[in-house]
């Protein structure tokens, strides 16, 4: 009897020790390396460690570009316990290969089908949930109110109004639209919106899934609309020289008036422009098409080969909590996917929440919705089109070749 008790003790002790060894540290890999998100996560993790004194978090930061490639290495070999990632095709690529853990149990326990109702479709594949979203944000046109007022321009809601606004700004030697396409993806924002407004979400997603040829007349219609901006020179000159950050000063110093970008730009607005920056929804092009939006969602996942899944689930549940969703998005100046969590009281967020609340549907973003190889070539094509619109046929044929190869 004593012996058995002792054995039991030893067994208990050793399991306790082994769980301590693994449960002790929770390794999180993340690409939130920009200053604001970095600080926000440092704070939220300190909070998590305080609530869970038995867990020490090791938080590894990577820059965005490197992260996208190296995550594939660890997921296969020795992954961390939690990874930051993106909803949509990007998540699906790993789910299809069995690299992400099914966390439907977590959703059920925490009643997340209800509290995350709007985000649920983006996180669901084969009826199961594969991660927890912690933030999303709107895209739209950020503009200089003072410049618009000075030249008697109102917020455009239709394509014709938008073109007229551009023409007026151009006449007054202001670049209507600022953009930096050096790293390509900013051009994809324009493509997404022009295509969503011209052809609608269903067609857009079919194109993203490789079901429609790029040489389709509907795609051409999208580019024809785009050409109405490119040909008169409404985009910032030399945009291919600049990153998205380098294109910002043109907006701030008044050389450019509008910028189609995500809400992550707002923390960068200089203080002296307080109250002079405005936001409007991308204008309607085809009245028969609904108002669909890009609303990229950032997510957390547990790799299937993670060592400490137990604590990883605790962290995901923690991050799914209303108060933490409020807190992290308050710091990021973005929108919490949790329905009861509050976005910070901020002019741009209010607009974003209202806009996305009434949206007819949302897409993630070009390079999150389509295959990576397709996205890369596609975005190169967009950039080229924005400098040489007359090459449209050659560009679309090239993209079609890539589509056929990628989605065979």
């Amino acid at each position, binding site marked *: 009897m004593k012996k058995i008790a002792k054995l039991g003790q030893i067994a208990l002790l050793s399991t306790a020790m082994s769980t301590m060894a693994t449960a002790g540290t929770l390794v999180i890999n993340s690409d939130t390396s920009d200053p604001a998100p970095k600080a926000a996560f440092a704070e939220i993790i300190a909070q998590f460690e305080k609530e869970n004194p038995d867990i020490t978090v090791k938080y590894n930061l990577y820059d965005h570009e490197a992260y996208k490639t190296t995550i594939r290495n660890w997921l296969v070999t*020795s992954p961390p316990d939690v990874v930051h990632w993106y909803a949509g095709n990007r998540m699906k690529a790993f789910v299809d290969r069995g690299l992400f853990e099914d966390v439907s149990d977590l959703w059920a326990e925490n009643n997340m089908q209800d509290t995350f109702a709007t985000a649920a479709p983006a996180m669901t594949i084969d009826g199961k949930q594969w991660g927890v979203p912690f933030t999303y944000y709107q895209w739209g046109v950020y503009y200089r109110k003072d410049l618009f007022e000075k030249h008697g321009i109102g917020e455009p809601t239709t394509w014709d109004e938008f073109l007229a606004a551009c023409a007026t700004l151009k006449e007054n030697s202001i670049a209507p639209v600022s953009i930096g396409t050096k790293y390509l993806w900013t051009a994809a924002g324009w493509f997404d919106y022009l295509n969503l407004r011209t052809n609608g979400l269903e067609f857009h997603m079919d194109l993203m899934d490789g079901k429609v040829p790029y040489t389709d007349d509907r795609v051409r219609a999208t580019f024809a609309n785009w050409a109405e901006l490119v040909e008169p020179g409404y985009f910032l000159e030399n945009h291919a020289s600049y990153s998205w950050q380098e294109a910002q000063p043109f907006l701030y110093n008044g050389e450019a008036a509008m910028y189609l970008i995500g809400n992550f730009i707002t923390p960068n607005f200089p203080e002296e422009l307080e109250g002079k920056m405005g936001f409007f929804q991308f204008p309607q092009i085809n009245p028969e098409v609904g108002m669909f939006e890009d609303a990229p969602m950032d997510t957390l996942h547990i790799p299937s080969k993670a060592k400490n899944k137990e604590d990883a689930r605790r962290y995901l549940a923690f991050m799914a909590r209303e108060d933490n969703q409020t807190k992290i998005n308050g710091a990021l100046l973005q929108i919490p996917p949790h329905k009861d969590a509050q976005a910070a009281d901020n002019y741009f967020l209010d607009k974003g929440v209202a806009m996305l609340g009434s949206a007819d549907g949302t897409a993630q973003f070009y390079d999150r919705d389509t295959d990576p190889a397709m996205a890369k070539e596609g975005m190169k094509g967009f950039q080229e089109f924005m400098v040489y619109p007359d090459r449209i046929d050659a560009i679309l044929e090239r993209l079609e070749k890539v589509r056929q190869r990628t989605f065979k």
Partner: protein
Amino acid sequence: MFPRPIEKASKGVNISYRIALVASIVLWLLPLLAVMATSVRSLGDINEGNYWGWPSEWMLIENYTQVFTSTPMAQYLMNSLIITLPAVAGAVALSTLAGYALAKYQFKANIWIFATFIAGNFVPFQILMIPVRDLTISFGLYDTHWAIIFFHIAFQSGFCTLFMRNFIVGLPTELIESARVEGVSEFKIFFHIVLPLVRPATAALAVLVFTFIWNDFFWALVLVQSDEVRPVTAGLSALQGQWLASWQLISAGAVVAALPPVILFFTMQRHFIAGLTLGATKG
């Protein structure tokens, strides 16, 4: 010798030559001088477009301090050292052994092994990329200092063997032969006779290989990714993405990254040039 020594020319030619020297050096280093000038500017100057005028205030200490306090630059520099020093030592050690074998022993495969080392040294990195990355992952070394260290030891041993072999070929064979006749073992011959003779060459080689490895960017991109192991080249490139508008910081970072090989070069100039040209006089 050639061209005709300038001191034999007239005084006017002499003076204008000296002026031309200074002017040409300024012109040659102009892009670099611009970066150095910017690294001491204030953000205010940069926002106002004062890139080329006199700085309104000198921010030398502030900017360089900020590089170290607000970025992992110190960590990157440390990583570069942790990677470069063992890699240099390893490559030089392996290639001294191999170079001696190829220089002083006659055997049939000799020339072919030598040719393989040379050929491998010229191979484009890209053809090694995927397998080396996979190997590194399967050794469990991905994203560790050792990932880069091992690769550099292996790859640089090609160039280093060429170098050491060409140097050792020129050493007198008589010493080795007479030791052999006296029954000294081959290893003792290497350690007690050959090694002391090649010491100057290893110094030259080490300095040269140090700059090669320090300046490597490609493998730093391919084999590691976290701030804890990333060397300064890849680190700087990543910082470029984060600091876009803060040119004064990027340029200070660039100067800091360039400093160690530059210091090494100026203190060991003779070795460095000897190293570069030793491989070159042969062939």
